[in-house]
């Protein structure tokens, strides 16, 4: 798995970007996206997924089930 950002809910505030320990979050023209290849669900870094923990809008940074579970 990896996390993804639900585009329709994101306010584009940018809070999540610097919090990601893997630099998996990037902004392009005001749209924030998670690179599933870089996202480790914060495993190995923190107990909670940082993007989900700091995002002001509930259910905006969520698990993307189309990716297999991250293997540490």
């Amino acid at each position, binding site marked *: 798995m990896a996390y993804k950002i639900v585009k329709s809910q994101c*306010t*584009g*505030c*940018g*809070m999540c970007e*610097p*919090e990601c320990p893997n630099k998996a979050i990037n902004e392009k023209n005001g749209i924030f996206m998670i690179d599933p290849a870089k996202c480790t669900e914060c495993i190995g870094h*923190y*107990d*909670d997924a*940082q993007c989900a*923990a*700091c995002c*002001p*809008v509930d259910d905006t940074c969520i698990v993307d089930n189309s990716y297999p579970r991250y293997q540490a």
Partner: protein
Amino acid sequence: MSSAAGIATINLTDIRSMREHRELAVKVEHTGCSTSSAQGKTGCGSGAGAGDLPPEIWEKVKNHPCYSEEAHHHYARMHVAVAPACNIQCNYCNRKYDCSNESRPGVVSERLTPEQAARKVLAVASEIPQMTVLGIAGPGDALANPTKTFETFRRVAERAPDIKLCLSTNGLALPDYVDQIQAFNVDHVTITINMVDPQVGEKIYPWIFYDHKRWRGRDAAKILTERQLEGLEMLVSKGILVKVNSVMIPGINDGHLVEVNEAVKSRGAFLHNIMPLISEAEHGTYFGLNGQRGPSAQELKLLQDRCEGEMNMMRHCRQCRADAVGLLGEDRSAEFTTEKVMAMEVRYDLARRQAYQTQVDETRAEIGAAREAELAGIAQGADDVKILIAVATKGGGKVNEHFGHAHEFQIYEASNAGAKFVGHRRVDHYCQGGYGEEDALEGVIRAINDCHAVLCSKIGGCPKGTLKEAGIDPVDSFAHEYIERSVIGYYKDYLARLDSGELTHADRGDAAIRQGAFIAA
């Protein structure tokens, strides 16, 4: 408060009068007091308005349109919205909009990069000599976006060293950035502190993000209050001015704010600004959706009076729209859109700015003298009649706005101690028409219903009659006079009429605080 990213807001007090001043400024000769530094500090003129502030603090705040009520009439600040991220959630904030601590809810500022923001600041400062302060207050929390905030300061300080820098924060990240704040010579920091008791705090803050975790409830509020007070103490120990903002939420922290006042006063905050909760369901905030009401004008004033004591209370904070450009509610932001600013040729003219500032110092000395002269005739020790008077002004410290054109009224309390500014009330233009002038006039009356009189430069016959019926005396005989001496003048006349039996003194009712987002013309 506001955090990271790029929105530019400018609140200039009174741009129209700026225009008038600009013409004057060109003609100003240096007489009497001379300008001693690039920051517009002068040797004299510190008498009027200094009040009980220590001289070094008065020197720092006297030209600050946010902190000195007197300066508010002559100078303006500007916000740039470079900081959209925030590290906490407040129940009065809907994060789709700007931080409700620093601007009115329901408003979205245009976000700017630090580079765009710095350009905008320089463009506005060159056009508008009144602009003396740059603030970063959002749209989120200035310190949840440290890179963008400090990069903007760096760029502005490089080209315009005379502009004062200030920032606003909810305080959670503050202790980590005190050194940087000092290094950038930021001399004013505003912390929004709504409680010092986690039991109160848990009703205001559903969560915070701190130390890589989301904290909720009382734990969250405990961390927040500890960080806020620690940050406040650290700033004060470094000689940085700290203002505290509090949002008054009836039934939740209204009584508790007296304790907050005590706590921040004892830690060295120089000003405490209590603002009313603005809460409407349409803003989509937790409080708005759950019917939490804001305070009435009277409730707000009572609390401000209780907290006043020997501390300065700030009463002119107008919860301004973060990206408005203009003095006293006027908005020139359309002239400074990012597109226009990026295309402008910006010449930063320090000499012109200094000439304006010298002229303002002279005007302020005159205002002080006029006030003292008028006060001299007042019967001291007479019975202590207090009345509130609404004033329509477009700046320059004068009664110079047409009743029907006023966006807001300044409220003064007149007593035998003189004229004291106690707040302002925002209104819809009565004259604008469109959707029913009658409704607009009723709105104005509701907003100033606790006042005995309204002073303006001119007023039509029709509204005059309606005001009189509502028990508010419409007065245009002080047109273009200085405000304070006019208020005292009216008050003296009022006392004389009481004496002669022409009038009997009666208390007026309460007034409403305007809720909706303010859309400038």
